[in-house]
């Protein structure tokens, strides 16, 4: 029987899909190096917009904020999410309800979560700022870290914990030499995922940042600038953020392939 799929046709469709996905991004990258700075005409290669970008104190301040939020919320979400994943896995037989509520923040729309968090902070009369963004990012990152670590734990052979004890190891040595090394790739993958999500998160940060310039993050800054048209600096900024995100995500994917480092 002849195959229904025509290989040449399949290749064309595939190319079209990739073109659709990546041409806009390529354009952005190209324009970030456009000397003239206009999206309509190419006047020559230059990195001057990157220079402009680094001299813009508004953008640099926002970048610093974003970095603080991403790093702190990633650390918190990774520690809590890993513990949560272990706890849920141990109590797995108690039903799937727990699982559903843990993963809810992953599924519900960001805007809903943003409004909910805003209402919550207002209700408690919390003064909003970077710390409220951090807490909010922990809320949804927790779910992502937990799901990545849980995927790993599903195949975790708990008998190795007993084996380590049987061979004479105290619990703390077992955790350090057996449990952590086996789980580490998933924990790092979860942390990298959380970091990238936090890095370019806009809606929730926008709602929970409070007033004032002090707690503006990078996506918020870009949004503010874009209202006056896309400047070449934004292209340069977007290109950097893109690159960082892609590298981290690729790293995370690699680690989370289910294998261990060195295999």
């Amino acid at each position, binding site marked *: 029987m002849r195959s229904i799929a025509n290989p040449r046709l399949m290749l064309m469709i595939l190319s079209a899909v990739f073109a659709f996905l990546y041409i806009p991004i390529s354009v952005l990258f190209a324009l970030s190096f456009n000397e003239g700075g206009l999206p309509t005409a190419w006047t020559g290669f230059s990195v001057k917009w990157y220079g402009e970008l680094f001299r813009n104190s508004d953008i640099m301040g926002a970048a610093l904020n974003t970095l603080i939020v991403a790093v702190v919320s990633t650390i918190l979400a990774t520690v809590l999410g890993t513990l949560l994943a272990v706890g849920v896995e141990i109590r797995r037989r108690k039903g799937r309800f727990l699982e559903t509520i843990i993963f809810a923040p992953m599924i519900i729309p960001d805007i809903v979560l943003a409004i909910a968090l805003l209402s919550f902070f207002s209700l408690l009369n919390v003064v909003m700022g970077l710390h409220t963004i951090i807490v909010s990012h922990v809320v949804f990152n927790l779910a992502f870290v937990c799901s990545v670590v849980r995927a790993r734990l599903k195949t975790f052979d708990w008998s*190795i914990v007993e*084996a380590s004890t049987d061979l*004479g190891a105290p619990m703390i040595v077992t955790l350090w030499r057996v449990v952590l090394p086996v789980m580490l790739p998933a924990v790092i993958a979860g942390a990298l995922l959380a970091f990238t999500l936090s890095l370019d998160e806009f809606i929730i940060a926008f709602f929970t940042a409070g007033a004032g310039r002090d707690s503006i993050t990078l996506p918020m800054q870009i949004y503010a600038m874009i209202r006056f048209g896309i400047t070449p600096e934004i292209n340069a900024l977007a290109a950097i953020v893109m690159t960082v995100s892609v590298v981290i995500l690729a790293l995370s994917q690699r680690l989370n392939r289910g294998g261990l480092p060195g295999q």
Partner: protein
Amino acid sequence: MNQPLLSIRGAQKHFGPVRAIDGIDLDIQENEFFALLGASGSGKTTLLRMLAGFEMPDGGQILLDNQDVSHIPPNKRPVNLMFQSYALFPHMSVAQNIAYGLEMEKLPKAQIKARVDEILQVIQLGDLARRKPDQLSGGQRQRVALARALVKRPRLLLLDEPLGALDKKLRGDMQLELKRIQLEFGITFIIVTHDQEEALVMADRVAILKDGKLLQCGTPHQIYEQPESRFAADFIGVMNFFPVTDVAGILTAQDGSVITADRTLTKGGQGVAAVRPERLRLDGVGDNAITGTVTATAYHGLDLQVHLRTPAAPDPVVMRLTADAAEARPLAAGDTVTVHWSARDTRVFAD
């Protein structure tokens, strides 16, 4: 009588309302190869985990070298367990896996290396020392798991269904290999298995467990030839059962034929007479005789299995004829045949 290495006294373990271990007394001697045999749910694994220290008994004592170890945690007992799943550390090489237990004893590096190399020779995996567990075959992983437990030179080595995951051919080889290693190291082995053949082949003594109780304990020969209960008789090997009524010491089968045995039912009444398939004879020698119709024959190489339907028993009677006996009297389905066996080979159990 020597002081036993291990003495289990009235051990009990409950999981909620379930009595997993219900009062077990057992003595195990130094250098013994001992098998705990039972179906799933018999409590054999719980008992093993209790010896390893992963379960604490609710009652009774476990004495090792005359010391009560009942409540000593697993990492402080001179006992090692070879896990059914092998439980090898996936991120460590074969050599690192084996060295782990010695590192916990804080031995000097040179000594650890020497002992790891030595045990790698014993299990013949010297050239795979740098491999990770997922680069090994099932049989190789099994040997690494054994080496990792053995290298600590425990007083007692526990093996939880050690051959369960291997295919049949490999299992046969490993049974002999385990016996060889046990003799070579002079370490007491306790093996848990549901495979009665495995228990009979390897062990010096076998204990049959059922519902958390010890049913019978003895050499493989005793267990096979002198089962003390109907369950034990049925569980080990193949056994033919004839329901009988005991009236004044005369055993009568359901079709009225009389079965003679060395023993009768102590209290009279209902029971079963039992005989092993290989004790049934076609040459007319024996105190007992039943007549039946051949329903099927199956050739096994060494012997011929014949199934007979007889009014004396509800289930088909199984007979195992040696190649010689089968050739002397060829049988085919539909033949009517009378088989004999001696009173000596008849076991009687009350209902």
